[in-house]
């Protein structure tokens, strides 16, 4: 999900016998589910892939604050406003935990942010869609957070210690996110005809992009096999996507709204829902930068960063001045 366009650098999977000794020892630890920690030996490709995957996950949290933050000032009740602020704040925190995990791999947060701003690093495609109504906030919590949870829970078992611990922390806080989204949808679906129509309209616009969140079909996911061997990708795209659909359709039935897919149908034989074809051109375009909000999202983040430079610089300057004062006048510095 966050590994969109992450090149593992591996051409083909190798068996233990084909690996040099250090790498074999590393792979055996991974196979035995012993965590890899920051100072442990690891293949350079593993390190690079992880940096890219974790940082893209972090970028997704940060950029993800924008479509939802868009409705904080317009939340239709004080309770919803408070809940939405708390949710978006959680996302900032998740971004922070993930940047911290990435930093254990020898890269700084500022470097990662620079890669986001230059367009070199990606973030989850879903956040390039606009939030046009209050119902979109419900749809995002219900569908997007639902998909994210589906992806994140298995990652709690991933091979890299700091990433897995960050995921555990994130998952603890995440369950309320999906529930708050579903609760919004439920309130709308039980409300006035306009509110119910608003909910249906949001589902119409967010369903397919949510399915695309899980990434391209397995057959086209060149790097998945290596990531799976390294245990930084636990379940396949198609598997996660199918689970998500199976879990979500009954929820929509309960709400009384329908997914915009005429081919969506329960298949008794397979025990799963069949579904219609996904427009992969749309996903590739969005990932390439042509989604409805890509330019705006990036501009907003770049602007916040650039306009905040004087603040960050001032804080550093003050810290340095104070340290210098403490060095020359210890008594005065202790007053504060």
């Amino acid at each position, binding site marked *: 999900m966050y590994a969109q366009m992450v090149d593992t650098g591996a051409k083909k999977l190798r068996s233990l016998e084909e690996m040099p000794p250090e790498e074999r020892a590393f792979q055996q630890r991974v196979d035995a589910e012993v965590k890899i*920690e920051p*100072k*442990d*030996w690891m293949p350079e490709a593993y390190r690079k892939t992880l940096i890219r995957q974790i940082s893209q996950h972090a970028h997704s949290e940060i950029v993800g604050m924008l479509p939802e933050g868009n409705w904080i000032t317009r939340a239709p009740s004080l309770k919803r406003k408070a809940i939405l602020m708390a949710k978006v*704040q959680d996302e900032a*925190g998740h971004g*922070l*935990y993930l940047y*911290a995990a990435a*930093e254990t791999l020898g890269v*700084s*947060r*500022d*470097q990662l942010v620079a890669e986001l701003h230059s367009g070199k690093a990606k973030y989850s495609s879903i956040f390039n869609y606009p939030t046009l109504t209050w119902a979109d906030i419900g749809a995002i919590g219900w569908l997007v957070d639902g998909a994210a949870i589906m992806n994140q829970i298995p990652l709690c078992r991933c091979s890299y210690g700091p990433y897995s611990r*960050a995921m555990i*922390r994130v998952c603890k806080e995440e369950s309320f996110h999906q529930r708050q989204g579903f609760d919004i949808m439920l309130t709308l679906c039980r409300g006035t005809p306009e509110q119910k129509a608003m909910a249906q309209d949001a589902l119409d616009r967010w369903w397919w992009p949510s399915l695309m969140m899980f990434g391209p079909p397995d057959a086209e996911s060149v790097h998945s096999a290596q990531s799976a061997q390294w245990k930084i990708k636990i379940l396949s795209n198609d598997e996660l996507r199918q689970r998500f659909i199976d879990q979500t359709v009954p929820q929509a039935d309960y709400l009384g709204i329908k997914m915009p897919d005429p081919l969506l149908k329960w298949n008794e034989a397979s025990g799963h829902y069949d579904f219609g074809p996904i427009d992969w051109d749309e996903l590739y375009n969005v990932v390439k930068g042509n989604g409805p909000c890509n330019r705006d999202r990036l501009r907003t983040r770049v602007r916040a960063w650039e306009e905040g430079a004087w603040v*960050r*610089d001032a*804080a*550093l300057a*003050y*810290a340095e001045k*104070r*340290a210098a004062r403490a060095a020359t006048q210890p008594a005065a510095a202790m007053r504060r």
Partner: protein
Amino acid sequence: MNEWPLWEIFIRSQHGLAHKHVGSLHAPDAEMAIKNARDVYTRRNEGVSIWVVKSSEITATAPSEKQALFEPANSKVYRHPTFFPMPEEVKHI
């Protein structure tokens, strides 16, 4: 780049016995690191006592050292309570 340094955060919760490492964050100095830690890592009133240490100030063992530092204890297996099975009838031991 004029980057804020990285700090490691340790929190001892209300009924906890020791400070636990909870993660890291960026801040221009220790005082701000503590304030930020309160906002980031105790948003749900999880902690009471906060320690912050600049990441660059931490010295850690290297993985290859694991053998030398911990081997002696591993070989003295009688130090582990499970080495001495107790009769079932004996309680509180």
